[in-house]
């Protein structure tokens, strides 16, 4: 297998400086792959896919009657992040998560940042993710955002940006661990001498983070993962994390509030649980407080949480900090709380709620990406340059009707990686989602989920929109 026919085109390529000229950290990988016998790379790719199916590493697709489970497409050529760059990413993420956490705490207390006119009041008041029920809450150690998955992208010129903050229930970390395991089993040759930083410690780090949340004086608080159930698209991950941490995986119907404790229904009666790593949205946590039609949560949970008798990760209300309009203010937020310049820059963002910026957006829809502030997973978005005139007109209408719900960003020429497709190696666009844990201190997992848009030319990497993933190799210094 040679990379001679591989073309980087007009994009930044994560593996090559130019056609067939590898980046410094990727030289060894290129050499290893090229030394494989003919057809071996494709055989390894097929073996990896078989293993994924056998292990049932799948996600659920809602609108598909025939098969509700699909494997998350996986590509065996790893994506490499060099040590120095990772060092910078790690520092940048710590800075960002630290500041965003201060922001959430401030918003639910004095709102100093609003009073000082740094973030406009109307943005907070109109944010759907602002939870008035959380005003005055004091989570242990004032940490709200225990698990964060920040989306990073790289533009044509090589500059990395933060594209999105995911502070509610970011998913995907199970694929980081499983991708690594699959790679080691199907492609051990390429690991030798590559000095890749391991990712295996994530589950025990997560467990320690969760255990650190319980305020009471208990040696080992009882932790459980709360899932919406088997039909949730990320169910595999919930069960994987519970298994890897060795804790119970519970559904709302397994829990009940008794005497100011959250109890699990066990074969021997009720047993208390101290910390819930909840993977259900705020809306569904407690039918007495949030959506009353929710069958996924536990009646009385919020009351017990407020009394400090159970801990929740992430804390309810963190969604305010990943509202896509608030995102535009993150550089100012960092400066306000830390007195520092933002390290990893934001993508320039137009807030449609602002009349001047809205006018610009509507006039330049063919150059912009428009996103709905409250949606994720690649839904409710317009990629202007790839859209039809009708789609653009439709979005212009939607923006005028409900400007607060939209933001726009310039279309980035996302960086690419080599991917196996149609029997050859071709360039496809990627992003990178590292995972950050915040308990007694902030920890960044050396790795992350590299998502690939498998359709030629596509810029949407979400698994619900035909994206796949790769193992991400952070090299040792």
């Amino acid at each position, binding site marked *: 297998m040679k990379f001679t026919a591989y073309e980087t085109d007009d994009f930044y390529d994560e593996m090559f400086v130019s056609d067939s000229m590898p980046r410094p950290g990727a030289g060894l990988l290129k050499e290893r792959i090229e030394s494989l016998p003919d057809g071996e790379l494709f055989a390894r790719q097929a073996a990896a896919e078989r293993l994924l*199916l*056998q*292990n*049932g590493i799948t996600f659920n697709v809602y609108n598909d009657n025939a098969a509700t489970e699909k494997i998350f497409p996986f590509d065996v050529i790893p994506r490499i992040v060099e040590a120095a760059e990772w060092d910078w990413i790690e520092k940048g993420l710590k800075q960002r998560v630290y500041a965003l956490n201060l922001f959430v705490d401030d918003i639910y207390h004095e709102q100093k940042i609003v009073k000082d006119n740094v973030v406009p009041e109307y943005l907070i008041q109109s944010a759907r993710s602002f939870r008035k029920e959380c005003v005055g809450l004091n989570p242990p150690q004032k940490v709200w955002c225990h698990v964060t998955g920040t989306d990073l992208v790289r533009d044509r010129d090589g500059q990395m940006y933060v594209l999105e903050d995911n502070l509610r229930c970011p998913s995907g970390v199970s694929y980081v661990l499983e991708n690594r395991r699959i790679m080691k089993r199907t492609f051990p040759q390429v690991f030798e001498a590559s000095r890749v930083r391991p990712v295996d410690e994530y589950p025990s780090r997560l467990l320690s983070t969760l255990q650190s949340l319980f305020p009471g004086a208990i040696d080992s608080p009882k932790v459980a*993962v709360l899932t919406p*159930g*088997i039909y949730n698209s990320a*169910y595999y991950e919930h*069960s*994987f994390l*519970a*298994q890897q941490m060795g*804790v*119970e*995986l*519970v*559904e*709302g*119907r*397994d*829990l*009940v*509030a*008794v*005497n*100011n404790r959250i109890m*699990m*229904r*066990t*074969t021997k*009666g*009720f047993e208390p649980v101290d910390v819930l790593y909840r993977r259900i949205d705020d809306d569904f946590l407690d039918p*007495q407080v949030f959506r009353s039609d929710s069958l996924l949560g*536990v*009646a*009385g949970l919020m009351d017990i949480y407020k009394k400090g008798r159970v801990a929740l990760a992430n804390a309810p209300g963190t969604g305010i900090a990943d509202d896509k309009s608030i995102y535009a203010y993150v550089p100012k937020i960092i400066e306000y709380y830390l007195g520092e310049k933002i390290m990893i820059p934001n993508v320039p963002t137009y807030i449609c709620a602002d009349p001047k910026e809205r006018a610009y957006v509507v006039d330049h829809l063919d150059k912009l990406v428009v996103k709905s502030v409250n949606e994720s997973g690649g839904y409710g978005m317009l990629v202007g340059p790839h859209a039809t005139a009708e789609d653009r007109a439709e979005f212009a209408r939607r923006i005028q009707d409900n400007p607060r719900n939209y933001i726009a960003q310039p279309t980035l020429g996302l960086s690419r990686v080599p991917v196996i497709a149609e029997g050859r190696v071709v360039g496809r666009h990627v992003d990178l989602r590292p995972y950050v844990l915040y308990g007694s201190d902030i920890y960044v997992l050396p790795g992350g989920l590299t998502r690939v848009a498998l359709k030629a030319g596509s810029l949407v990497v979400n698994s619900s929109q035909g994206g796949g993933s790769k193992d991400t190799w952070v090299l040792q210094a």
Partner: protein
Amino acid sequence: MLSRVANSIYWLSRYMERADNVARFIDVNLQMMLDLPGGSQEQWQPLVSISGDDAAFSSKYTVATRDNVINFLAFASENPNSIVSCLRAARENARTIRESISPEMWEQVNSCYLMVNAAASNELLRSLSGFFSDVKKASQLFHGITDTTLLHGEEWHFYRMGRLLERADKTSRLLDVKYFMLLPSVTDVGTPLDDIQWAAVLRSASALEMYRKRHGHIAPEQIVEFLILDHEFPRSIHYCLTTANDALHAISGTPIGMFRNPAEQRLGQLRAELAYTDTHQIVTRGLHEFLDAFQTKLNRVDQGIYDTFFALRPVEPSAPDRVGQ
């Protein structure tokens, strides 16, 4: 452990065992038909009766031909007890408790399901006999993997209980059907044909060779003795219930011989009944009547287990909090 998880482990185990048993029944019947004298009518209806699904079968098919019965029992997704359905249910249960079982167990259930699904959707690729032996092996492998990888705590006891109660049920049905329906006519009793059929019943329960070691010649009363009352044969009803009872008491910690809940009471009574009866009593009373009553009592054991361990229990009225459901 969580009631929901215990329930799923129990059913995971029952469904794996059920798929195994259905595969045995069909496979042995296939083999047995080869030994029938020319001109005899092939007997397939009894197989449907074993699984207790006559009504569901006759709503779909008019005649119990070989193909109809095999399709219904092995591949039909609308039959909840077909091999395909059992393995789908086993996998669905395993999927909901993946965090509680070992990864090896999950991989085995999953690959077994994928294998059966592929066979169900491609008739051309089917070698029937090979298929049934694959299902049996997959199930046995699953039991072996479970034994060596699952914690031998509560989860394992629920698992064993499910497997053994299912097995006791299937052994009783197997005997029942042979006694009433496989018998072509009274004059065949004691003929070579009768021997062949009894040998097939034993083979269905993987019992032929062990039976020979114990009793030698094929004799119906001794077969009844072996499959119902034997103390050492792992598929005999008595053995299954004794071991299931051990598992049940290991869960609760109640000493054997006492009871603290309906499950322990009912299983204990049923086991004692078997421990203090003999073949003569069974046959005098009527084998069919005995087995019929046994199945009813076994269902009550299952209901007792459900009520004791799996059902949602209300919060005591004194508790100040509202109950969710």
